[in-house]
């Protein structure tokens, strides 16, 4: 039964080993009464549904109905189940995260980015450059008479006899920029054989003295850093003739444009000193059109037309042939003359040279262009980004200023109360965080429900019929005695409206009533003769109560001081005759048995049974009332169990050290946190100091939050609340300023964060309508809210960014002297930096935090706020400058490329 049970054995991925024995123990520890039957039922359910449940939630849904018996238990069961079976990531402990704003990081990041870009460029220039290889090198040869045209071996060069021919070899390939820059390191050595039988040379120029057809052979060697990269050879035919430059064309029009059907007359003239040439005319192609010196033609169609004239001096097979090309635009007369003004057609006289080759342009490596494009876009985006941030920061600052002003006016709309205390407490919503009753309290409820005999009787129908039948039909009524459940009258001393002890007794009463204990409850302040009840605003006298509730058991919840006569120190005769009318009565004192003195032992006890309010005391009391023990036995047992009670009355609990010792008396509260001892009860008490006034709801809510953090939610119970209510200042609901400061100083930052967040929740739950009529309450609530939000914001501006406005508002209230909470003011002033608080700043030197006073904080905040605006502006300007630089770099590249 107690062995771990394997759920969902079929699917390895869903196997969970359930530590059921531990879980049942935990349930028992939280007040569940786990029976063997329930465990057997749970095991049956697990076996039945093991293969059906898909996750722990479903398993919980099947198991919970077996173990729980009310809504509170259902909630507790779920929490415990989740603790045991849901592998939740433990909450990270809250550490002070406040550190200077990250503008320095932003600049560093930006500088890093820029550095990375420029380093990239440098690296590219230096390391991505590679020596040119044979594939990279493409050579070109040019005739220096026409340097832009590459030589083509298919078209022979023509030159006049005796004319100087100059050739040059160069690199034609697109090298990277760096390679181009390194052109100095590239050297081309060309050796020429001119085809005349003369010696080869590297000069590149030669004068042919005799007509003829020659073949030039050139060998180029490309050297890079004195290393041979490639060797390429080139052949070019050259025709040398005397007739070069002797052909001239005369035409009968001067413009480059002629009309359709215009009669065109051309005449070829050659040098008369040379041999007679055979003249041929070609129109728009290679088809011979006419032979003869004079050529006449007309074009019928508009467009570009080419007339070529060839002069062959040595017959058709002669190698000496001169060519003249005329390109003209023929236009249609009907067309608009404006259109005719298109650029002049070229009158290309490619004298003796073949078709022109493409012009070689300088090209840069596209990666460089992409790099500049990237930097342009990047810097432009960064510029826009920082502009938006700057604009937002600027507008935010303006908006916050306005909002703060509005909020400030709202908060301080009614005249701020100068009195240190406000009469009415804030109407917190009582959510009654107490979950399960302690087992002892359940036992007490059982004792209190015990039935007792009643004076009334009733007609027993069954017995009456039987008796009547036996009496031959004559009616014979039979009456039976009734029993009834014990009823109680609680008289609770409420020394002040905010008495936490009275509220604890209220809680006790409600809890017992929920357990079906019949209780009537009345209050009194200092005079027991005058009691009151929420439904009886005019009050009710003790005597009247004695008449009305004569058969009830009277329990007086008080220390009993008001009952004692000032002269005789025994119960005053004013009260005793009335009290004596109750057959069963007792006084339940909040004074611990360990603190009992003359008042209890001699003043009260002889006449009235007195029991301490602790659970062992209440148990003894109800045993006595149920006649399960005699009075002297009960007293003897009380004396015997003296060690169960702890002293509180004689302690100076407004001293934080004494208070801590008092809290250490609760064994459960002594825990360890990160290897260091911590008293959870003391942290709970210290956490109450975040609130200027102590209310019952505050004690419960903060207690629940702090105890849950340490995994001790079940310790939010009657016994521990009694321990707190015995602390005088908690009972009165006002913490002395000096003690409050000391408590705040000793409160762990993690717990302070939790306490303040809890307070914010409590404040938010207050219905607005409850405060509408009371500006003082509204102001108190708002100042509390602002204080808590400010505290949380300064602790972790990132996480609590939504409270930023409150931090500005708090500063304004602080400057205007509207924060009147003395302990808080001193706590935050922290002039000597003597203690850690939520303002503490992350120390950039070490991993620790350094204490910061509020003035220092405000100063650094202002600096950081203005710095941020400037930083965004500067980064925006730098980015735009970077973008402009990239743009001009691109422009320069384009210009360089031509």
């Amino acid at each position: 039964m107690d062995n771990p049970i394997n759920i969902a054995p079929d699917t390895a991925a869903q196997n969970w080993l359930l530590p059921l024995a531990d879980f049942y123990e935990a349930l028992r520890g939280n007040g569940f009464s786990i029976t063997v039957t329930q465990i057997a039922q749970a095991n049956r359910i697990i076996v039945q549904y093991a293969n059906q449940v898909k996750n722990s939630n479903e398993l919980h849904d099947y198991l919970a109905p077996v173990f729980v018996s009310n809504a509170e238990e259902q909630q507790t069961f779920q929490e415990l189940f989740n603790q045991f079976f849901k592998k939740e990531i433990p909450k990270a402990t809250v550490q002070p995260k406040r550190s200077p704003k990250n503008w320095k990081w932003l600049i560093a990041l930006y500088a890093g980015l820029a550095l990375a870009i420029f380093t990239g460029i440098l690296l590219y220039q230096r390391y991505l450059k590679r020596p040119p290889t044979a594939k990279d090198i493409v050579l070109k040869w040019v005739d220096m008479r026409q340097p832009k045209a590459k030589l083509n071996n298919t078209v022979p060069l023509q030159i006049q006899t005796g004319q100087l021919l100059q050739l040059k070899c160069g690199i034609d390939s697109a090298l990277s920029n760096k390679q181009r820059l390194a052109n100095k390191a590239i050297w081309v050595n060309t050796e020429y054989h001119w085809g005349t039988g003369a010696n080869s040379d590297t000069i590149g120029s030669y004068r042919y003295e005799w007509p003829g057809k020659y073949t030039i052979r050139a060998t180029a060697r490309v050297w890079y850093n004195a290393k041979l990269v490639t060797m390429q050879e080139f052949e070019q035919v050259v025709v040398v003739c005397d007739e070069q430059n002797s052909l001239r064309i005369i035409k009968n029009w001067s413009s480059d444009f002629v009309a359709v059907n215009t009669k065109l007359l051309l005449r070829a003239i050659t040098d008369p000193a040379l041999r007679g040439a055979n003249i041929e005319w070609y129109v728009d192609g290679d088809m011979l059109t006419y032979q003869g010196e004079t050529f006449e033609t007309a074009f019928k169609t508009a467009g570009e037309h080419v007339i070529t004239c060839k002069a062959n001096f040595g017959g058709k097979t002669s190698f000496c042939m001169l060519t003249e090309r005329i390109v003209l635009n023929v236009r249609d007369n009907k067309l608009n003359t404006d259109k005719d003004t298109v650029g002049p057609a070229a009158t290309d006289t490619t004298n003796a040279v073949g078709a022109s080759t493409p012009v070689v342009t300088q090209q840069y490596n596209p990666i460089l262009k992409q790099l500049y494009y990237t930097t342009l876009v990047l810097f432009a985006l960064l510029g826009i980004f920082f502009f938006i941030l700057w604009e937002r920061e600027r507008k935010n600052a303006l908006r916050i200023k306005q909002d703060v002003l509005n909020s400030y006016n709202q908060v301080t709309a009614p005249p701020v109360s100068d009195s240190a205390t406000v009469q009415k407490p804030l109407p917190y919503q009582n959510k009654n965080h107490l979950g399960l009753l302690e087992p002892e309290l359940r036992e007490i409820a059982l004792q209190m429900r015990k039935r007792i005999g009643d004076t009334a009787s009733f007609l027993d129908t069954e017995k009456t019929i039987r008796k009547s039948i036996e009496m031959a039909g004559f009616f014979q009524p039979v009456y039976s005695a009734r029993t009834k459940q014990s009823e109680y009258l609680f008289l609770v001393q409420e020394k002040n409206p905010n008495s936490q002890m009275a509220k604890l007794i209220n809680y006790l009463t409600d809890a017992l009533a929920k357990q079906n204990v019949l209780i009537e409850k009345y209050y009194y302040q200092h005079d027991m003769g005058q009691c009151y009840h929420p439904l009886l605003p005019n009050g009710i006298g003790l005597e009247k109560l004695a008449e009305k509730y004569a058969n009830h058991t009277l329990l007086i919840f008080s220390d009993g001081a008001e009952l004692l006569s000032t002269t005789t120190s025994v119960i005053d005769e004013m009260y005793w005759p009335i009290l004596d009318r109750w057959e069963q009565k007792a006084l339940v004192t909040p004074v611990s048995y360990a603190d009992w003195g003359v008042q209890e032992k001699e003043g009260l006890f002889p006449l009235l049974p007195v029991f301490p309010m602790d659970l062992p005391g209440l148990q003894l009391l109800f045993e006595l009332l149920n006649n399960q023990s005699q009075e002297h036995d009960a007293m003897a047992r009380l004396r015997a169990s003296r060690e169960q009670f702890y002293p509180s009355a004689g302690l100076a609990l407004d001293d934080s050290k004494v208070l801590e010792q008092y809290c250490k008396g609760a064994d459960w509260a002594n825990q360890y946190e990160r290897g260091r001892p911590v008293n959870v009860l003391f942290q709970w008490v210290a956490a109450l100091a975040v609130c200027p006034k102590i209310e019952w709801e505050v004690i419960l809510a903060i207690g629940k939050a702090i105890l849950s953090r340490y995994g001790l939610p079940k310790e939010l119970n009657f016994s521990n609340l009694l321990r707190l209510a015995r602390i005088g200042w908690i009972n009165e609901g006002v913490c002395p300023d000096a003690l409050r400061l000391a408590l705040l100083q000793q409160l762990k930052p993690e717990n302070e964060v939790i306490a303040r967040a809890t307070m914010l929740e409590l404040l938010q739950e207050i219905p607005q309508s409850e405060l509408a009529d009371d500006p003082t309450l509204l102001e108190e609530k708002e100042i509390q809210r602002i204080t808590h939000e400010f505290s949380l914001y300064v602790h972790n501006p990132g996480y609590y960014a939504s409270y930023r406005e409150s931090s500005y508002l708090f500063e304004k209230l602080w400057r205007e002297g509207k924060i009147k909470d003395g302990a808080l003011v001193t706590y935050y002033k922290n002039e000597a930096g003597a203690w850690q608080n939520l303002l503490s700043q992350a120390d950039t030197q070490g991993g620790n935090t350094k204490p910061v006073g509020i003035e220092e904080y405000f100063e650094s905040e202002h600096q950081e706020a203005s710095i941020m605006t400037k930083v965004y502006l500067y980064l925006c300007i730098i980015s735009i400058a970077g973008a402009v630089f990239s743009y001009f770099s691109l422009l320069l590249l384009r210009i360089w490329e031509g």
Partner: protein
Amino acid sequence: MIQTKHIQISPTDADNYKPSKALLAAINTALFLQRPLLLSGEPGSGKTECASFIARQLHILYPYTFTYPQPLRFNTKSTSQSSDLFYAYDAVMHFADKTNQPKESFIAFNSLGVSILATNPVEEHYKKFRNFDSAVLSKKPVFGSVVLIDEIDKAPRDFPNDLLAELENPPFKFNIKELPDFDVTQDLRYPVFIVITSNSEKGLPDAFLRRCVFHHISFPSPKELLHIVNLSLKTNDLSIEPAIELFTELRQKNLSKKPGTSELIDWIACLQNKLLLDKRLAHWRYADADYKESIIETLGIIAKSKTDFELLSREISG
């Protein structure tokens, strides 16, 4: 015949009642363990309707075993005794009888008695009982059933304590002390599933609780409320949503008695009737004074005391 331990329900889409996963698991756990299901929750959270849902589902899934699609209901009173669950003996009428009728004719079976009796074949002498024909024969002679013991909190404290023995473990049995020879035991082939509801107004004895499978039904979420209202009013009016939002908001106020779903349904029906369910309701804070006044006039349906009414009125009038 089905084995009772295998009885399980899974809701059909056609059913208007949509239980949560946790509630469904609790129902199936109770069916599996053959224990009474104790449901608690605020008024209007659907406890009673849950019993009807179980009866319907069992009838759909096991029509030959659960022939009757309704729960057999026992309304607890402040004077109820445990024997009232099984039968009621009209002693006064018997005493006044001059026709010498048999004692059986003054005994009427109540819900748990009917459910146990119905699991057994009809015997001739059963017909002498006052309501055997109407309560058992009229349905079907032999059947399993769902018994609803409603609002057990109303009963005296002894009532649940006395039930302990009766509900210990199936087979359930009962006898009529006025008829010493009468003794009926449940035929286990026909399950009797007991659903008990409680408003958690006062605690029940621990021993009784230990014998039950417990589930607390939380108050429906706004989405569930919308579904409930749409089903109840047979409408699909979108303007109901802001009404539910307002109701939820008002319900969270510090009311002495929180309104339930029935009050919500009545209230929305009233708003519909008064033509107040329109766009203004979504922005009621900014509505004109007349509209707010009209809303306030309907708050009597939600508020159950003068102070509650005043609180809600203040909230609406701003």
